């Protein structure tokens, strides 16, 4: 089945810093999503981005489907950005998730 790899596995930032999270996937996809899991466990969809670039406030994402990767950019990080960021792609009837990037933003 399709494989999803995320890097880095964890990241510590000072508040205000920028970061880039990466997601590599093993096969062609027509659907890729980024999620944020907050410290209470809730998974929130950030972007539905099968290709191209999207921006939402301080967050933006780019997917290059032909090269099988996606990037999530976080600018001017805030402590509320802490949590786990997951990339997920559609594999058949389900989403296949990577192992996530744990982000800690320190004040």
């Amino acid at each position: 089945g399709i494989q999803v790899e995320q890097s880095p596995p964890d990241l510590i930032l000072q508040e205000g810093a920028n970061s880039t999270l990466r997601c590599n996937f093993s096969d062609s996809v027509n659907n890729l999503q980024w999620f944020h899991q907050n410290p209470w466990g809730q998974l929130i969809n950030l972007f539905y981005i099968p290709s191209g670039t999207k921006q939402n406030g301080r967050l933006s994402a780019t997917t290059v489907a032909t090269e099988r990767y996606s990037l999530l950019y976080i600018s001017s990080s805030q402590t509320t950005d802490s949590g786990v960021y997951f990339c997920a792609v559609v594999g058949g009837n389900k989403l296949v998730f990577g192992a996530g990037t744990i982000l800690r933003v320190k004040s």
Partner: protein
Amino acid sequence: GAGVSQTPSNKVTEKGKYVELRCDPISGHTALYWYRQSLGQGPEFLIYFQGTGAADDSGLPNDRFFAVRPEGSVSTLKIQRTERGDSAVYLCASSLQGTFYGYTFGSGTRLTVV
């Protein structure tokens, strides 16, 4: 409802016992999914319902796991003869007609088998 609701939020059970976990999807969402998330991992697919029927149960780990959705709305995940390795967060998601756009997760049930 406004979101996907899962109950209970936490469940502690003894090894060998039977448990039921409930998911109430967003009203009008015909597709419902169960995932299991172990510590430090991403969610892993268990089963997908389209309406009342299980369209894909390929992720269920063994025959101790079973899920139903008798009226096409609320779903129950049932685990028999629980084992310590079943301890995880069980997540439910729903979407409109099986599309992945607008896929919404519940807050999960944290199951601990002692």
